[in-house]
Structures are given as structure tokens and as C-alpha cells.
């Protein structure tokens, strides 16, 4: 039964994705054309994957957070900070691996900080993560001293723009992270515990789950994912732009998770579905661009999408559907 339910979910999100892609194809007949050049794949489809990678990575971290009935508003700012740290370190002459480790360590620290505020101080997640959302961008600018720090370190640039087995590196990293985190939560008991805490924290604690530690771990994963996305974006533009890196992406990540079937009230989650959600968002983005609308039109579409999903998820819709269901059963 669960497998069937899972298959249903797969259908909803993937059908939506295929639908959006087909729409793009109608608007732009060359959409599905993929070419092989200089040892890598090119084409609009690859472009969707590549550009969707940062949000997909954020969504991988955001999804477990949302499943615990939380939210992490700081991921965009953490991206900016991580990019700034990585860029500054390579510019200062450190090797790339130190720059990357430094950026990841910063992301981990931010995640632990958020986790402590939420789990130990019992501050509402929105409020707790708001602190870093506000301060983080300032800290990023502090690191970059207000300018866009450009670099040409081959490793960092490769992370942002290189390719592996023909696929762009961001896609490879996003895919690897998706597999890694999915296995990490599903092959251990962590996924079950996350859902248990999200559904009923009191009952989960009484059943012996260390919910505070779990929350800190979950926010840490989100911080790490945000830092990874930050490194990718910095590598892509060969520089750290503290003002614009990751701006509003926290919202895209939340949206991706919600499209992927996670409820803001906590509970069930699927990381691959959230990644599909991120791809749907990016495919729409691309579609709007190729059809000649201004890119900001995207925001309007996203607003419509959020509203639609919220309506479907809302208790009121449940009541109305329940009414219909009851009516049918009564008639039968």
C-alpha cells in the first residue's frame, strides 16, 4: 500500500514536471535537443538541470527541516556567507580544499547555531532562523569587504562550471547529495525519527527518540547543503557576490519541498520528490525566459503556485473534500 502511495506521489510531481517541460517544448521547439560538445552535454534540458541544481541542493537540506515542523529561512544568507568565505580564502592564497572545507565548516556552524536556538532555547524556527537571515548577508559582506571578490582558482571554477561524465558539476553534486542524504536518512532510522518528531514531538520523545539532538542534526544538514550551494554559485560566476548570491532562494527551497509533498505541519517527506520540485520551479523559470516574458514574471507564477498548493494542503480543503467524500458514500 505504501509503495502504491509512493507511486502515486511520483506521478503527481513527475507528471507536473513533464507537463512543464512539454509546455517549454511547445514554446521553444528546440527544447529537447541535446548536443555533445567538447566532452560535455549541451541543451536546454541540461540547462534546466544545471540552473536548478543550487535550489535542488537547498531543498535537499530544507526538506528534513520542514518534516520536523520547522523551516530554515537562513539558507540564502548562508549561501552568500559560504561563497564569500571560499572566495576570500582562495584569493588569500589558500588551496581550494581548505577554501571548500572552510565554507562547509561555516555552513555546519550556522546549522548548529540554528539548531541550538530551535531545539535548546525552544525558539520558533521562523524566528530563530530569521536572525541569521538578517545578519548573514551582512557577515558575508564583511568577509568580502563589500565588493565582489573574483577569483580564478581552477578547482572552485570547476565546481561551478566544470563537467563530469558529460554532466555539469552542479548537477553531479546535486545528484550525489540527493543520493547521499536520501540514503543517510532512509538507510538509517533518522528518516523515521524525523517524521516521528514532525508528527508528534511529545509522543516521539516518550518513545525514546532524542528529539533535541535530532533537530540540531537536521538544521546542520540544512546548513551544510546551503554552504555547498553557495560554493557552486560562487564557482559559477567566479566570484562571491554577497548582495545577490542566494537572494530569495530560501523561498524557492521551501517551495520545492512543498511541491515535493512535504507539509509545513511536519511529517512525511521525500528528498527526491523535493528535487523534482526544484526542477519544476527551474523549468518554469526557463519556460518564462524562452517565451520572452521578463524573468520577474516568474515571481507571479510562483505566487500563484504557492497559493494553489496551500489551498490544496489547507484543512479547509480537507473539510470540503471530506464533505464530498461523505456525500458520495452516503449516496452509494
Amino acid at each position, binding site marked *: 500500500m505504501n509503495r502504491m502511495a509512493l507511486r502515486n506521489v511520483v506521478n503527481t510531481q513527475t507528471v507536473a514536471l513533464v507537463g512543464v517541460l512539454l509546455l517549454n517544448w511547445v514554446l521553444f521547439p528546440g527544447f529537447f535537443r541535446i548536443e555533445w560538445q567538447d566532452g560535455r552535454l549541451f541543451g536546454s534540458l541540461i540547462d534546466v538541470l544545471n540552473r536548478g541544481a543550487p535550489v535542488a541542493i537547498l531543498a535537499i537540506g530544507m526538506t528534513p527541516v520542514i518534516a520536523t515542523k520547522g523551516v530554515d529561512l537562513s539558507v540564502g544568507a548562508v549561501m552568500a556567507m559560504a561563497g564569500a568565505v571560499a572566495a576570500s580564502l582562495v584569493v588569500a592564497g589558500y588551496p581550494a580544499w581548505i577554501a571548500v572545507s572552510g565554507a562547509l565548516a561555516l555552513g555546519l556552524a550556522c546549522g548548529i547555531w540554528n539548531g541550538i536556538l530551535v531545539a535548546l532555547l525552544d525558539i520558533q524556527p521562523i524566528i530563530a532562523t530569521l536572525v541569521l537571515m538578517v545578519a548573514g548577508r551582512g557577515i558575508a559582506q564583511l568577509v568580502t569587504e563589500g565588493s565582489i571578490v573574483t577569483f580564478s582558482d581552477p578547482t572552485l571554477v570547476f565546481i561551478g562550471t566544470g563537467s563530469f561524465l558529460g554532466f555539469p558539476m552542479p548537477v553531479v553534486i546535486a545528484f550525489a547529495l540527493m543520493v547521499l542524504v536520501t540514503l543517510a536518512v532512509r538507510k538509517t532510522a533518522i528518516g523515521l525519527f524525523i517524521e516521528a518528531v514532525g508528527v508528534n514531538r511529545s509522543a516521539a520523545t516518550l518513545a525514546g*527518540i532524542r528529539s533535541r539532538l535530532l533537530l540540531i542534526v537536521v538544521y546542520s544538514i540544512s546548513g551544510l547543503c546551503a554552504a555547498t550551494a553557495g560554493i557552486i554559485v560562487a564557482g559559477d560566476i567566479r566570484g562571491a557576490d554577497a548582495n545577490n548570491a542566494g537572494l530569495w532562494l530560501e523561498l524557492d527551497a521551501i517551495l520545492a519541498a512543498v511541491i515535493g509533498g512535504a507539509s509545513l505541519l511536519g511529517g512525511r517527506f521525500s528528498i527526491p520528490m523535493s528535487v523534482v520540485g526544484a526542477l519544476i520551479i527551474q523549468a518554469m523559470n526557463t519556460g518564462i525566459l524562452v517565451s520572452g516574458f521578463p524573468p520577474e514574471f516568474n515571481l507571479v507564477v510562483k505566487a500563484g503556485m504557492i497559493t494553489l498548493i496551500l489551498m490544496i494542503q489547507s484543512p479547509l480543503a480537507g473539510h470540503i473534500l471530506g464533505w464530498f467524500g461523505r456525500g458520495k458514500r452516503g449516496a452509494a
Partner: protein
Amino acid sequence: MRASGAAMSIGKLGRSAVGESAFRMEARGVSKVFGAHRALDHVDFGLLPGEVHALLGENGAGKSTLIKILTGAYQPDGGEILVDGAPVVLNSPLHAQTFGIGTVYQEVNLLPNRSVAENLFLGHQPTRFGLVDRRRMERESRGLLARYGLDIDPGSELGLHSVAVQQIVAIARAVQLSGKVLILDEPTASLDRDEVRRLFEVIANLKREGLAIVFITHFLDQVFALADRVTILRNGKLVDTCRLDALTRTELVRKMLGKDISFSGSTSLKTERPTTEVLLNFENFGRRRSVRPFNLTVHKGEVIGVAGLLGSGRTEMARIMFGIDPADEGRATMKGAPVGLRSATEAIALGFGFCPEDRKADGILGELSVRENIVIALQGKLGWFRALNRDEQLDLAGQFGEAMDIRAASLDMPVKLLSGGNQQKVILARWLATDPAFLILDEPTRGIDVGAHAEIVRTINRLRDDGMALLVISSEIDEVVAYSSRVVVMRDREMVAELRGEDINPGVIVQAIATHGETAHHEAAT
């Protein structure tokens, strides 16, 4: 019937009291059904002006359902509500207010973040030129509070006052806005003795002014101290409505617990097992403001029954043992070695298990599957990284689900879709899967159907015979008698008796629960 007889016996109402119209408010044959559960079954309830009418019953007896119908929060599925003899439909508590019916809840439903005056007047504040006239509001508040013997600054924040003062403010608001009927839903649950006395003075005054007052409490002392009449509910049915001066405490407890049988002969049927191997020892174990220190030795292969009314400290005792609210006094040893019991995780690691009283809030993980609900505690014990795979989970869930005879269409269906009895079995199965040495069950048979009930009692007996130690909290005295080798009795947050052998019979237990002992004090804080 009963009610009109009682009406006549209220002397000061005189001749006019005879007949239905004497009731300020009346419920006639009201029923309420939730799904398959009949929460109220043709209950009659009549409330006279100038009386304090206690409403008694254990959890699940239908008290709160009746109250919600009287205040308009629920609509009855059958029967009718009359105010001053005229049938009414109460759509909401707010609507009920317009009929003169005001309610004060245990958890004061006021705004702790606002001033006392604003809490008294919210929605009806006096205004001048469209602006709230704060000076007048506070002046009127002062007058109003004085009538209740409160000399507090009306401009002060309500949340900074004691619960007792908040209760009185809530009463003042309710009386001021409604004025005919006052429903007090466990107003004394978190008050100390002096505060209770103060509240009682207020209630007595209101009674003299002719208000009809419904009073719900778990403290029998308070019922006898305050109420004129009492209505007792049990399992959604009316047991009796009668005057209190015609009733002894023991009779009252007997009615509440449904023990109309003769008290002499029915001793425990089973012989006490020779259990000598000590599993746990709690020495002077207690927690401030929760349960007074108690001593208890638990042997392998025995069931210790815990009897006591709601609010007697029985659940608190379980929570301390399980480490949810860690003890701050005394020590516990397991097989002679001291143990900490600082958290549930710690207790579970030692082989404890705990089925909480409130299944929905603390027990089930509603959205998750039956399978996941069964394996969760074992998985918690195994830790994060030794995950049970799906097949192992299905095996376990199947095995323990079958042992508990859980009726679910599939082990993968959400547990919230199961009936209450099956949910309870799921939680039992969850703990059995951890192979516990000591299992605490808080009201395991409450609110579930007869079949599941029998199944759970059978399981308790089987587990005891297999050598497990169990502590079972229950208000079903017959049950406690049937499976316990010892019974501890809780009263006023204190262990007041430990009964064994011949003493384990309903008569002695009811007596111990009801006895107005000299040792009973309310100052659990000191």
C-alpha cells in the same frame, strides 16, 4: 423524576419549585455520538437557581461533553436544552452567553498578556469619542473586583497574578456578561488550599445572589464543602442526581466507580505469587509540586495496581518513574544498582516502557503507519544507525500486531485511522517489541471497546506470568483487583496505602480512596 424530587427538597424555593419550570437550565435526554463512540447517552440534567451543582465522573464519563453541550460548544445529537423552561439552540459559547450562560475553564480562557480591566471588559470597553475610556474602565473594574474581594490594580497584567486571581477575574467577567448560569470547569485543579478557600467564598456569594452554578472537580472534599446537589456520570450515562447531605463519601465513590456490589466477600481470585526477586526499588522517590516522596519495591512477575481518582498524583507518579519529569528527591535502584532515570531515553535503555494516558497527544504518531508506530520504540532503543529494514519492521509489526490481535486492514495504513482500542494495542505492541522488564500502563483500558478491553486485560495477565513487572494505573477497580498482586492507593498527590493479600478487594480500595485522612494536605509545594 429524580430531578423534580431534588427540586422539591431545596427548601427555599418553596411551592413554585415543583415542576419543570423551576430549573434555570435543563438538559433533557441529551446524547452525543463521536464516530462509534457514544459519549453521552440520554442524560438528564437540571440546574436550579441558587444552587451549586457538582458534576462528577472519571475521565471519559461524559462530563466534558455535557459541559460543552451546555455551553454551546457542541450540538447534541439527541435531546434538548431548556433555559428558564424554554427550549433553546446554543450555537456557540458566545451565543450561550446571550442566554445568560457563562463558563470558566480550568485553563483560564482569558488573555494573560492584557490588563485585568481589559480582560473584564474586552469587547464591551466603555468608549469616549470612539476611544477606549481607560480611566472609566479601570474605575468600574475596581468596583467589580471589590465585590469579589479582590484588591488588585486593574491596570496590571493578568498573567502576573496567581491562577486563583485569574479564576476569580474569569468568574467576574462571566457573571457580568451572563448572569444566570455559571459553569466552573475544574476551577480548583491548580490552586492551593488558601486559594481554594478564597474561590469558595466567591462561589458561595454568587450562590446567595441566586446564580445557578455547575461545579466540576475531582476533589471530593470540595464537592462536600461546596455543592448542594451532585450529578454523577459514568461511561456516558447518568448514574444519579441527588442531594449531597443524603450521601456519604464512600457511597459517592462507589457510584462514581460503578461499584454497587456488596463490599464484603469479593477478594482477589488469584493467589499471590511467591515473587521474591526484586527488580526495582524506589526509595523516598518524589518531585516537588508533583508527587510527595514514596517508597515502592517492584518484583519480577508481578502487577502493581495503582488506584486513585483523577488528579490524585497517579499519572505524575508514572511520569517520575519513566524519567519524563525526573525525580528531584530520593533514589531508584534496579537489581540493586542505582539508576538515574533522568529522561525517557534513559528509562527505555533500562528496559522500561510507558503507555501514556492521553493516547492522541502523547502516544500515537497519527500520520505514520501501524508498522512504524510499532517499531518506533525498539528503533529508538537501537539508535540512529542500526536501522531495522522494511522486512524486519514488517516481521516485528506482524508478530506483535498478531500477539495483540490488532485489527488493521494493513500494517501500512496510518494509525490514526484505527479505532481507539486498536490504537491502544498498537502502543502496547510498541513496548512489547522492546522486550521490557518493567511496563507502566496509564489507564490502558479507557475509552476502548469491550473486545479490546478484554484483550488488554488478558495481555497484562500473560505478561505477568511471563515474568514481566507491570505497574497499571486504572480507575476500573474490578480490573485492578483481578490482576494486581499489590495495590497502591494515591490521594492528594501522595501514596496513602499499599494493599496486599486479603486487602485487595473493591471495598477496601474504595474506602482508601475516599477516606478523608488526616494526612491529606494540599501543600505539595512544601
